[in-house]
């Protein structure tokens, strides 16, 4: 049967283009997801600044958790966990350690003429220069009040050995003398670096002496693997599980605090996206194979008549599919990598994953992706082949092919299962799921399952709908309408096969696009709702010194100002692994600058060991004002702050903020308390609210004046406040566009393929109509009405399927069953589907009608 399969493929290659494209796209996407998954699992960041030492001891970037059910897990931290300086002695004492080098990094910026030079530059202790290594090209090591600049920074700043430079660290401008200039030859373009003496660096970093990392250089001749083990043992016994030992590619993580927090997003995204792709490959390939088999049903019957067993027919279909999917998968390897990289670039561009994490798509995800894609295709072929194998050989002798019973038990069961699954996911989304990164993972597939289920039942539903709309259509469209209706009713299987792919198109595309527009709309609204401040000062040089808030408040026309620290952390009462947005604010400015709604308790008490949270959160964590709440900061430190206020849930009419509003999912903490547990250690923004009736120009100029004195500070109008956690959801939703593009492509191919095939097969019938006196225009009119009927049925079914996603997603996100935001996209999808239908029906018919009708009558095929 292989020969036959190959011959058929070669001879009928045009008919297999659609199947091939479906497999190709699917395989590429499955492989890309495999790559994302591998990247997420590995989280490999090649060491750059720490490349000079083989072993790095750094703070554990995950937190081990145990939830109420006793299952334990590990959650990535959002901030750098620093290590105890005592560990330096512990590591130095390990036999085989040549030297242990402390490493400190903190934002430090060279200022020339009032402007910051060298974006993203960091200050380090001079001994850390050996970790890269940096070597002096001139001058000497820094002493107190001195700094060594890297070559690039020195050039940008126009500094030479002996000259003075202004450096801003922790919001304070100081002058240092350049004692030397250093360069590194790792080949990486590192962030610009400033090196201070170790004592001064410790003081400038403001970390109470704690270290970022320790680089370990082995003594000569020491076995590295053995040394790693003994260092790890020593660290484990001394560090109490808060420090970890990194080697090889993972050393880079020590340079990227919080990088691991992207791991969960990447893996979730890869899994969600990958499983959708598999589902779509399965259905796409099955439906297109089914169509191609239907088109050569007579050949199959002939094969059966001359002695092919059912099994041989099945094997032939499998053989064809195996060859096709093998080819498609092989060709998809390179595009799969491109897709994977572009998906990953999306993630890094949106800051979900640190840019430094390298994308890995090794042979394992490619092989697994290829296997999954081929297996999905073969599964689909098994399904389609069963049908083909049932072909009665006697059909080869029949004058015309009688359409078989379309509703088999298997089909009905599959459809019902899919619909039940979709409805189940829908209900779960609406009732069980909370607004979080995983919401899209149940909401999205609901419409996919429902679409496929409805598409399977399309012939029956088509007949019912056509019967229902019969009278009005007939009244509107006269004879063409009458003929179209007769055709749609008697040939409901044929019409149904045209409806099915369009249901998929509208259902899945509509569902995901609405999810996206709801997400966009809600985040935009909650960002706008959450903030009352009109202005913000924003620092790109590591944050503001504590004194600045007072200076801002002292500006004329300022009604209130608050520092703002963004971080993520954990509430132990929440299910483990769920991060919570933490927002550090000033107790006496929060009310004026943030939209907190009605308050229980007093936000002015938010000082020291205190926390405020939304009413919805208080309810779900089971705390009230006066209770303590066990939390962990982004650096893993635990705290038990007292609840001093509950915010939000304002029942005021006209205030759209309601309990559970997505904008109300952050904990408020005192800015200074929270800042101490972040990587930068300082608030990076100050929110400013103008007093009523103040001239905006006046307050703006005051702020501009302040900013001018602090290099690297920008004044922002209408600041938005979005916690880091929210971005993940936006990314997940943003990836929907890729999914939709894929599905639209798939569905468009199927729609065109189906309709062109159907229309071709009807040439004889159309010729007959013309022979009996119908003009071309009348025939085209009839086909047009049929097309519109198909579009109407498909739109209704597709919308029902899309609702399985839209309604629960909207209920959770926005407390509304209707999609939020613009409906233009859905209208465009529907209009596009209609254009496809009419184009794919009318163009081939019109072309077909250029041949005299007498030649097409009786040609049948």
């Amino acid at each position: 049967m292989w020969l036959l399969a190959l011959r058929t493929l070669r001879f009928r290659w045009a008919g297999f283009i659609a199947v091939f494209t479906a497999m190709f796209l699917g395989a590429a996407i499955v492989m890309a997801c495999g790559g994302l998954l591998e990247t997420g699992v590995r989280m490999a960041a090649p060491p750059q600044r720490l490349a000079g030492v083989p072993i790095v001891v750094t703070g554990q970037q995950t937190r081990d958790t145990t939830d109420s059910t006793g299952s334990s897990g590990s959650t990535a931290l959002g901030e750098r966990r620093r290590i105890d300086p005592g560990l330096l002695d512990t590591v130095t004492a390990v036999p085989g350690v040549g030297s242990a080098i402390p490493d400190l990094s903190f934002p430090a910026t060279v200022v020339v003429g009032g402007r910051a030079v060298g974006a993203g530059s960091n200050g380090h202790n001079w001994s850390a220069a050996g970790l890269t290594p940096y070597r002096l090209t001139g001058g000497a090591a820094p002493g107190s009040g001195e700094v060594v600049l890297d070559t690039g920074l020195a050039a940008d700043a126009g500094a030479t050995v002996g000259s003075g430079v202004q450096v801003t660290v922790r919001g304070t401008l100081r002058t240092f003398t350049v004692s030397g200039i250093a360069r590194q030859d790792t080949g990486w373009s590192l962030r610009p670096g400033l090196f201070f003496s170790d004592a001064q660096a410790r003081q400038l970093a403001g970390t109470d002496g704690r270290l970022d990392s320790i680089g370990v250089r082995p003594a000569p001749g020491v076995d590295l693997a053995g040394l790693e083990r003994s260092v790890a043992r020593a660290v484990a016994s001394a560090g109490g599980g808060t420090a970890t030992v990194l080697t090889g590619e993972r050393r880079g993580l020590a340079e990227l605090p919080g990088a691991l927090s992207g791991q969960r997003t990447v893996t979730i995204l890869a899994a969600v996206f990958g499983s959708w792709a598999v589902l779509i490959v399965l259905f796409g390939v099955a439906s297109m194979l089914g169509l191609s088999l239907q088109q050569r049903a007579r050949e199959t019957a002939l094969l059966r008549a001359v002695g092919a067993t059912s099994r041989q027919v099945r094997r032939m279909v499998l053989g064809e599919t195996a060859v096709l999917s093998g080819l498609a998968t092989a060709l998809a390897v390179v595009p799969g990598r491109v897709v994977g990289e572009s998906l990953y670039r999306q993630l890094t561009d949106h800051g979900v994953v640190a840019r430094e994490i390298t994308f890995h798509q090794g042979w394992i995800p490619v092989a697994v992706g290829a296997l999954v894609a081929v297996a999905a295709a073969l599964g689909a072929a098994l399904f389609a082949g069963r049908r083909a194998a049932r072909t009665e050989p006697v059909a080869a002798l029949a004058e015309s092919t009688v359409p078989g019973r379309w509703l088999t038990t298997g089909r009905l069961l599959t459809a019902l299962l899919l619909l039940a699954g979709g409805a189940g996911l829908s209900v779960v989304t609406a009732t069980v799921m909370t607004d979080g990164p995983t919401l899209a993972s149940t909401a999205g597939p609901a419409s996919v399952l429902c679409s496929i289920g409805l598409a399977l039942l399309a012939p029956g539903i088509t007949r019912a709908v056509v019967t229902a709309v019969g009278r009005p259509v007939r009244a509107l469209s006269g004879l063409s309408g009458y003929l179209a209706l007769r055709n749609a009713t008697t040939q409901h299987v044929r019409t149904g096969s045209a409806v099915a792919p369009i249901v998929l198109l509208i259902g899945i595309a509509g569902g995901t696009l609405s999810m996206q527009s709801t997400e966009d709309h809600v985040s935009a609204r909650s960002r706008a709702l959450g903030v009352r401040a009109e202005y913000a000062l924003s620092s790109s040089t590591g944050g503001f010194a504590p004194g600045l808030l007072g200076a801002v408040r002292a500006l004329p026309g300022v009604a209130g100002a608050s520092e703002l620290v963004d971080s993520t952390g954990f509430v132990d009462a929440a299910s483990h692994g769920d991060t919570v947005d933490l927002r550090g604010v000033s107790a006496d400015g929060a009310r004026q600058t943030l939209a907190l709604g009605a308050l229980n308790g007093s936000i002015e008490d938010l000082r020291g060991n205190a926390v405020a949270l939304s009413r919805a959160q208080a309810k779900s964590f089971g705390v009230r004002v006066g209770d303590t709440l066990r939390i962990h900061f982004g650096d893993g430190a635990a705290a038990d702050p007292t609840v001093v206020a509950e915010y939000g849930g304002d029942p005021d009419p006209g205030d759209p903020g309601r309990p559970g509003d997505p904008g109300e999912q952050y904990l408020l903490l005192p800015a200074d308390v929270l800042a101490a547990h972040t990587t930068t250690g300082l608030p990076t923004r100050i929110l400013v609210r103008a007093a009523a009736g103040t001239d905006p120009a006046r307050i703006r100029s005051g702020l501009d004046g302040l900013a001018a004195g602090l290099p690297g500070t920008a004044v922002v109008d209408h600041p938005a406040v979005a916690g880091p956690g929210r971005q993940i959801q936006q990314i997940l939703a943003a990836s929907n566009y890729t999914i939709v593009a894929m599905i639209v492509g798939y569905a468009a191919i199927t729609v065109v393929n189906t309709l062109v095939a159907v229309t071709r097969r009807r040439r004889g019938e159309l010729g007959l109509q013309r022979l009996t006196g119908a003009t071309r225009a009348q025939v085209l009119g009839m086909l047009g009405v049929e097309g519109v009927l198909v579009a109407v049925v498909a739109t209704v079914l597709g919308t029902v399927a899309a609702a399985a996603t839209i309604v629960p997603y909207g209920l959770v996100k926005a407390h509304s069953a209707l999609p939020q935001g613009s409906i233009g996209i859905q209208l465009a999808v529907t209009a596009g589907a209609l254009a496809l239908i009419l184009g794919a029906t009318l163009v081939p018919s019109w072309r077909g009608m250029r041949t005299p009708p007498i030649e097409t009558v009786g040609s049948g095929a």
Partner: protein
Amino acid sequence: MRTRGNERPAVAVRLEAVEKTYGRGDGAVAALRGLDLGFDTGSFTAVMGPSGSGKSTFLHCAAGLVRPTSGRVLVGGTDLADLDERRLTELRRNRIGFVFQAYNLLSSLTVHQNIVLPLQLAGRRASRERVLSVVDRVGLADRLDHLPGGLSGGQQQRVAIARALVTRPAVVFADEPTGALDTRTAAAVLALLREAVTVGGQTLVMVTHDPVAAAHADRVVFLADGRLVGELHRPTADAVAARMTRLGAWEDDPVPAGPASSSSAASFDAGPGGGR
């Protein structure tokens, strides 16, 4: 008469009291009503009858494509009712050949590949000489690598005949093999079929409505209303046409043996009730 009179004729295919009813209840249609027919090895029989007489159903049942509602079908002594679907298919490809009116060939395969397809399906090696002898007989030796799309209707039908003969089946069923052909091409195809019987010793059963085609057969059997209503030996086109005209006029009546002589191999059956 070209049948081998000196040998005791073995029966290649036998139908015994075959009934076939399509549908159920009120919609039930009886296509065959107790048909008894036998076909000698090495004979060429034409089956005729007006539309709806059951000749297609007869062919489907005799060839094992459709299972009869009741009665027995024996091919080379094997009762088809004893075979499951797979064995039935195997029997079909080893013992039975088909020639249809149209849609005969797989358009993706060359002439040669089409001809050897039944052998390949059976997992048998196509011996070169056997294929060549068949190809020679149908006169297509120079077109083996052509695709069917480039052949004329008559040539396509020859390929189909070659394919039907290549397995050396016990019986070849032909369903209107000349229905789509012009008179001259049809004559050539019929001559080819005749030759398969005369030279190759094959058994041939041909359903047709064309008296001229039927005249090439040794024997013509007439069906009407699902029953055997008569037969002609050594037919002429005129005699067949005359009989067909009568059948058309008295479609529901059993026709007495009349001018046709009774056959020893195929019993004449007027039906138990003597007709309606």
